[in-house]
Each structure stands twice: as structure tokens, then as C-alpha cells.
């Protein structure tokens, strides 16, 4: 690209051309490419949103239109009447929040113990936790289902939340944070003052982990919220459906009523979109943290 590399003298024309490319041409090309990509990324949302405001006859138009000719709100109340999406939302929220709290609690405790103590078997136990994360959930869901069945936990919140109650990555991340981010002296000082180990954990360690708690909480929540195949197995009672499962069942009932489907799909997307608008930076940072594992 640069004539300097070949060691030839640079003519003014060449220099001007290169400056132009660096100042204008290159950013312009990059922005064009990126913008085209953005259109592709956002189009499904626009399509879904547009269709959710179409009257029924406009969904079958040829040529298809992205935006409705006659806008209508009617699809939303109709979709809400056809299936209890409010209840599904509540179920999703309850399961995800419960799972998140459990993941945070277990990650804090295990992260503290693995991060600040030496004891026989530590290495082995930690490896067991990390190694179990190598197995994708789908590969052991059958025995887990049988266990839940023997507990009588089918169609219960705890049963649906079960696989999401612990997170190896959460323990790993918390261990990293506590081992490297909190000085040993702090723990030792508290111990010299006569604090018990449990008290050190609750009073010294936990208050210093808020950023890691936030990151782990976000990841745990997203994981539970986007669960699909497990709720599909566990929830046979319609009142126990989570949002995603409720929507997929709705889809099989109203296969051709695309305006209703889209309204329901928008309702299912909005909570996460609102969360993303508010917590965008935190969410993206937390997800980026998962690369630490490598």
C-alpha cells in the first residue's frame, strides 16, 4: 500500500492520493460496509415490528410490505387474550431471578474458598467444577429429567430453574476476582481481630465483590431467561410456561395468523430490549468477560 516500503521517491500525486484514502476513502468504505451490515442485523426486528401493526389481510400481500398501510393496535390485545403472556413473563422473571440469586450466592462462597484458602483437595475440586462445564447441558438432560421426576419437580419453578442454579464460570470468575482483586492482608487483618471465617466472608469479602456480582448476575439471568429445551421438557402445564416456550406453543396454534404472531413476538422481545437499552455497557462487558475462560 505504501510506496515508502519499496524505497522509491514519493510523487506529490501519490502522496495526495494516499492522504485522501486515509482521510476520506477508507472511513467512507468502512462506514458503508458497516451500515449495510446494520441494516441486515436490524431488518428482522423492523419486519417483526411492522407486521405486528398490520391488519390481517395485509400480512399476505404480494409484493410484501415492511410497514403497514393501515396501522392498527388491535393485534396486541388480541394476542394477549389468546395466551397469558403476562403470566409467562412473571414465570420467566421468577425463574431467572431465583436462578440468578442462587448463582451469585454459590459463586461468592465457592469463589472465596477457592480464592483465599489452601486445603487438601482444593485443586481437584476446582478442576471438577471447571471440567463439568465442558459437558453441554443437552448431553445430560435425560438423567436430570429423571431426577427431577423422582423429586416430583415436574411443573414446578424449582424444577424449571434447576439447571441454572449453579454456574461453573461464575465460580471461576469470582475466584479470579477475589484471589487477585482483594488483598490477603484485608482477610488476615479481620482474622486477627477475631472475626470468624463466615463473618470475614459476609462482612469483608461480599461488599467488595459488587462488580463481579453484577457481571455474574447478568450472565446467569440471560442464561435462564433464554432457556428453551429444558422448560419444554419440564413444563407440561400451560400455567408454568416461560415466555419463550409460551410463544413457541402460541406459534403452533396460530400458524397462519402472522399479525398476531408478530405482536406476541414483539411482546416477548421487549423486556430484553429494554434491559439492553438501560444496561448496554454492563451487559456487553459481562458477555465479553466469558472470553476469560480461554
Amino acid at each position, binding site marked *: 500500500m505504501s510506496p515508502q516500503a519499496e524505497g522509491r521517491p514519493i510523487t506529490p500525486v501519490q502522496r495526495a492520493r494516499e492522504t485522501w484514502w486515509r482521510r476520506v476513502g477508507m472511513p467512507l468504505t468502512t462506514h458503508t460496509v458497516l451500515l449495510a451490515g446494520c441494516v441486515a442485523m436490524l431488518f428482522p426486528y423492523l419486519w417483526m415490528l411492522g407486521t405486528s401493526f398490520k391488519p390481517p389481510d395485509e400480512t399476505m400481500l404480494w409484493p410484501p410490505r415492511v410497514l403497514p398501510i393501515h396501522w392498527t393496535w388491535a393485534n396486541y390485545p388480541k394476542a394477549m387474550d389468546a395466551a397469558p403472556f403476562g403470566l409467562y413473563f412473571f414465570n420467566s422473571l421468577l425463574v431467572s431471578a431465583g436462578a440468578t440469586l442462587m448463582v451469585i450466592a454459590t459463586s461468592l462462597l*465457592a469463589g472465596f474458598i477457592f480464592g483465599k484458602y489452601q486445603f487438601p483437595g482444593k485443586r481437584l475440586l476446582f478442576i471438577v467444577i471447571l471440567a463439568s462445564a*465442558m459437558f453441554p447441558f443437552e448431553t445430560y438432560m435425560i438423567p436430570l429429567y429423571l431426577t427431577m421426576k423422582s423429586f416430583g419437580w415436574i411443573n414446578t419453578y424449582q424444577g424449571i430453574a434447576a439447571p441454572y442454579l449453579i454456574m461453573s464460570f461464575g465460580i471461576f470468575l469470582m475466584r479470579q476476582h477475589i484471589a487477585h482483586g482483594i488483598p*490477603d492482608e484485608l482477610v488476615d487483618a479481620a482474622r486477627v481481630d477475631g472475626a470468624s471465617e463466615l463473618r470475614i466472608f459476609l462482612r469483608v469479602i461480599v461488599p467488595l465483590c459488587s462488580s463481579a456480582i453484577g457481571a455474574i448476575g447478568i450472565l446467569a439471568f440471560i442464561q435462564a431467561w433464554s432457556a428453551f429445551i429444558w422448560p419444554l421438557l419440564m413444563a407440561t402445564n400451560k400455567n408454568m410456561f416461560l415466555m419463550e416456550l409460551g410463544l413457541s406453543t402460541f406459534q403452533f396454534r396460530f400458524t397462519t395468523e402472522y399479525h398476531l404472531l408478530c405482536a406476541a413476538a414483539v411482546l416477548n422481545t421487549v423486556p430484553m430490549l429494554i434491559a439492553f437499552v438501560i444496561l448496554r455497557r454492563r451487559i456487553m462487558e459481562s458477555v465479553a468477560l466469558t472470553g476469560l475462560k480461554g
Partner: protein
Amino acid sequence: MTLDAAPPLSPEGAAGRVSRATTTRRLNRLTLAKYRFCYLGLLPIFAIYWVLRLEPISRTFYLSFHDWHLIRPNRPWVGLTNYRELLDDPNFLMALWNTSLFAVAVVVLSVVVGLALSVLLAGNLRFTAAYQAIYFLPVITPMVPMAIAWKWIFDARIGILNYVLSWFGVSPIGWLTSPGVAIWSIIIMSVWKVLGYNMILLLVGLKNIPATLYEAASIDGAFGWRMFWRITLPLLRPIMLFVIVVSTINAYNVFTQVYVMTQGSQAAPGAQLRVLVFDIYQNGFQFFKMGYASAEAVVLTLIILALTLVQFRVIRVDEG
């Protein structure tokens, strides 16, 4: 994944030089208290791990050697019979082929495009934050509603994709109804969904490459592509390895979008787009052949473990 090499210095060792006997006794008592706290604290956590992870993982292997039917009380040991039957099961073989094709395509496309995106966005471009947010958005959007939106974009009769293609004289394509094409529709949708994740991780990797390396290289006369091949790519190797491993594992477990998009009226009839997790789901929870489905799950596990090992070998990351 390194564990702490050196144990933290215990303050008692330095402070209590007055009387060795008392020190030892105090140390022991303290150490014992610490041990008790560690084991008692880990006990509930490992109990949960046992019930929710370790026991199910090992029982999958156990079940796979049995003729384990949910309804029948008699569940005899059958050795490798389930595995032998799998080799003759056209559904399983088709699922294995489809899933592998899906995984290869999704991993290659999402990693290559994700890398290109992250390189473009790592520079001093304006609006990078907005671009990143937009490309990342599908990652956290729930799968089912987006699969529904895509399903109708792909619709053969009234889908907008066929309409746009008709401007260029392309005759209507059965994106979800013709067997050879359906998988590519799912691939496109899935790449759209995971692209942002790869982009974000690779961006972190790119930001960690010291700028001085690029400066040094430019003094030596390296530019553009040469810099990319000589500096960017080699230094990105650890994070690339991670991205590829994670993408592969996720791709092999594809289920939701296939379940939503290829069932129902405007989608492929019957078994045209069968993936491994769907086959496991069907054998286990619709036909109740849990032993057989477990054998499939074991095969899936072994494939994933083997691929992870191979990827670690090929994209070797130097220690340190």
C-alpha cells in the same frame, strides 16, 4: 487456567515467634477452623453439583448401555446394542450429518465475519459504540421471537427475501421447505444470532495487542494485510481458539431455531431438517427410548470433547 501456585504467607508464622509451642498449637487450631469452613462451605455447593451436573453426566453413560424405556419397568443391560443400532438408524445419521454441516458452516462464517467486524471496529472509527451495540443486539434477544420473524422472511410464497431476489430475476426459493436449502436458511439465521458474540470477544483480544507492536512493524515497512497476518492473527490466537471452541460446542447443540422454524405449515414436512438434539429429544421424550437417546447424547458428548481437543492441538497456544 492456573491455580494459585504459592500459598499466602500466614501472618502467624511471622508474628508468633515468642513461643514455638503456642504458635504451633494456635496455628493448628486456626488451620483446622479454616479447613472446617472450607469443607462445610463447599459441601452444599458440591451437593448441588452432584445432583445437577456430575450424577446426570455419569448416568447418561450408564443409561446408554441399557434398554431403558420410560414406561417399561424392566430395563436390562444391553451392552453396546444401542450404539450398534445408532449406526443403522437413518434418522440419527441424517441428524449427525446435518448438525456437522451446520456447525462447520456457522463456525466458519461467524468467526470470519466476526473477525472482520472486530478489525473494522477496533480502529479509530466514529460511532463504534453504536455499531457494536447493533451487531451485538441479536445475541441477547430471545431466540423464539426472532426465529418466528426469520421464518416469515424466508417464507416461499410471501416472504420478503424471495421478493427482493425477484428483482434480480431469481425465481422463488423454498427457503425452509426444500431439504437442501432449509439448513442454509437456519445457518444464515444462526450466524446472524451469534455474530455479535464473536465480535465482542475478538474486540477484547484486539484491544489487548500492544500498539507498540504495530508501530514497530510500520517502521519496518509492514502495512495492511501483512500486519494483519504477521501481528494481529498470531496474537489473537488464544481468543480465536476460545471463540472457535465455544462456537463449535454451541453449534453442535443447536435446537431452538430448528424446532421453531422447521415445524408447522410453511416449513419442511417430516424429518427433513433433523439435528442431533432434536433427535435426542424425540427419541427420549416422544418415544420414551431413554437408553437409546442417552447413547445419542454420549455420541454428542464424545464429538464435542474430541473437537475441543483437536482444536486445542491445532491452534496451539503458547503458555504464559
